[in-house]
């Protein structure tokens, strides 16, 4: 099987090389390198959004979540994603308008908030928030795939070498081709992800005898898997609400997604992308239900690693097993490269001076972020879904500050908002490590922080007569 992986993997790398080559451009400005010329249509938009959003978390995390916690996982991720898609439609327009009206060069939300609040602190808080919560997320994705590869091919390569190889390939095509190369590779990786997850999903569903039979068998194993809060009581009201808020805020708080929101060539292209993305989300998440339920029936008491190894590799034909491995690598790379690159763009947005020098520093920063992710991936814990949720929730704490900056005439009046956001991030981190209580009374600390910050932003905004960004059309393109 290793030989098969090497052959198909080589073809895959060659395809990435080709995509990087066609993405190369003589125009090496920040606008072109970091923002792909801000001229992205809905087809490319769909795949780059999808490949960036749906990662290892989808292929490895979601089946295991369905297996362990039951059908509530659908509400946790699929329903939340649908609200997120509507949020892109509803708020994305105003974000784009505000950026256009500001007459500044947008490279990242950090720089834009620095502009809105006329405060360097605002930019630093946005960057720090993204950095603190994205690095562990990138690291855990790489680790998830690497552990899986190690299990599939024990003692072939050390874990650090698998991780380094992935990151080296990612950094090479990101550094050479910029965001365009990442987006072109996203198309390949998005299609591969969809193909792989459906092949496995259909195999699992067939083995269970169809949808109705599947739930009947799950019912016999553990009835509580068929309802919320699930066997371990995870999907309670607060967990689902906190997750939904975190996921809905992703397009505005996580740089790899907010960049894509801004670089669409028109509002119309963004709208079409939003609808297609919603459809893609259902298509991607549905087969993970089949895989998870298959696991609940056949591998109820197995560890996560054993369940995934058996279901995705051992129980499949060798060719499918190899495609799964490749799909996993693609899923991890397509999200991780965008996240690392997005952090680089945030750094660029904070830099002043000549574009050439700023871009050189940005490329250096991207390299440094990749190395940090590599080191972190070797030492991080391996609870994929819960770390992903930590990332959603952590970055969501930036949302009230970002929205206040976007929806108000003069955000500089609320110079305390970045400081308050920083305090909330600090409290969230302390509660995540149980240094302070993760519940106050019966309510989760993260939920209290999210709702408090949101409430303060709303009161500040409306209380001071802020207005929604509106106005007459100034043209469609950025």
């Amino acid at each position: 099987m290793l030989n098969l992986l090497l052959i198909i993997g080589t073809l895959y790398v060659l395809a990435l090389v080709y995509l990087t080559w066609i993405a190369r451009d003589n125009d090496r400005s920040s606008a072109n390198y970091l923002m792909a010329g801000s001229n992205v249509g809905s087809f490319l938009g769909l795949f780059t959004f999808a490949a960036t959003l749906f990662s290892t978390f989808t292929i490895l995390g979601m089946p295991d979540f369905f297996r362990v916690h039951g059908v509530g996982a659908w509400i946790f991720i699929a329903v939340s994603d649908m609200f997120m898609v509507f949020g892109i439609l509803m708020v994305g327009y105003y974000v784009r308008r505000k950026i256009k009206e500001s007459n500044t060069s947008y490279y990242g939300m950090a720089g834009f908030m620095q502009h809105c609040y006329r405060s360097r602190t605002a930019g630093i808080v946005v960057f720090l928030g993204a950095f603190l919560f994205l690095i562990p997320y990138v690291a855990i994705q790489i680790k998830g795939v690497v552990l899986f590869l190690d299990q599939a091919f024990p003692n072939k390569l050390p874990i650090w070498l698998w991780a380094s190889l992935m990151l080296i390939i990612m950094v090479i095509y990101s550094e050479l081709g910029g965001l365009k190369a990442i987006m072109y590779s996203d198309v390949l990786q998005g299609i591969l992800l969809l193909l792989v997850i459906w092949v496995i999903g259909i195999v699992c569903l067939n083995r269970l005898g169809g949808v109705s039979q599947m739930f009947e068998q799950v019912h016999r194993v553990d009835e509580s898997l068929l309802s919320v809060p699930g066997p371990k009581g995870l999907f309670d009201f607060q967990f689902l609400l906190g997750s939904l808020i975190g996921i809905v805020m992703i397009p505005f708080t996580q740089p790899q997604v907010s960049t894509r929101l801004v670089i669409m060539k028109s509002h119309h292209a963004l709208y079409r992308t939003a609808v297609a993305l919603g459809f893609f989300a259902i298509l991607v998440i549905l087969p993970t239900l089949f895989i998870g339920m298959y696991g609940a029936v056949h591998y109820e008491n197995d560890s996560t690693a054993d369940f995934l190894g058996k279901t995705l590799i051992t129980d499949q034909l060798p060719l499918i097993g190899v495609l799964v491995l490749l799909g996993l690598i693609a899923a991890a790379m397509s999200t991780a490269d965008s996240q690392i690159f997005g952090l680089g763009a945030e750094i660029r947005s904070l830099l002043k001076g000549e574009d050439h020098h700023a871009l050189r520093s940005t490329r250096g920063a991207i390299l440094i972020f990749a190395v940090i992710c590599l080191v972190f991936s070797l030492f991080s814990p391996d609870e994929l879904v819960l770390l992903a949720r930590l990332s959603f929730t952590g970055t969501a704490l930036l949302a009230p500050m970002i929205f206040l900056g976007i929806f108000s005439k003069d955000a500089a009046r609320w110079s305390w908002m970045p400081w308050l956001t920083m305090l909330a991030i600090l409290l969230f981190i302390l509660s995540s490590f149980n240094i302070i209580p993760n519940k106050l009374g019966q309510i989760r600390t993260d939920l209290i922080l999210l709702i408090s910050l949101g409430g303060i932003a709303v009161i500040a905004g409306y209380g001071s007569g802020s207005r929604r960004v509106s106005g007459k059309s100034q043209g469609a393109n950025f």
Partner: protein
Amino acid sequence: MTMRRKIWRLTIGLVLLLLLLTFTPFVIPMGAHHPHLFGIPYTMWMGFAEALILLALTYLGTKVHPGRDE
């Protein structure tokens, strides 16, 4: 107010209504999985239906969004 703007506001209202319903027993009845639909437990088929309705509302929203003509 134009008809398009009214429909846009109605779309937002329906999405907010769905948001509220998501966290009520209407979508997530605690510990209950009946009634089944084609053998599918309640929260699953209701969640699936909700996802489809939200997708449809998003599509409708693209047709009536205030920034559609820009």
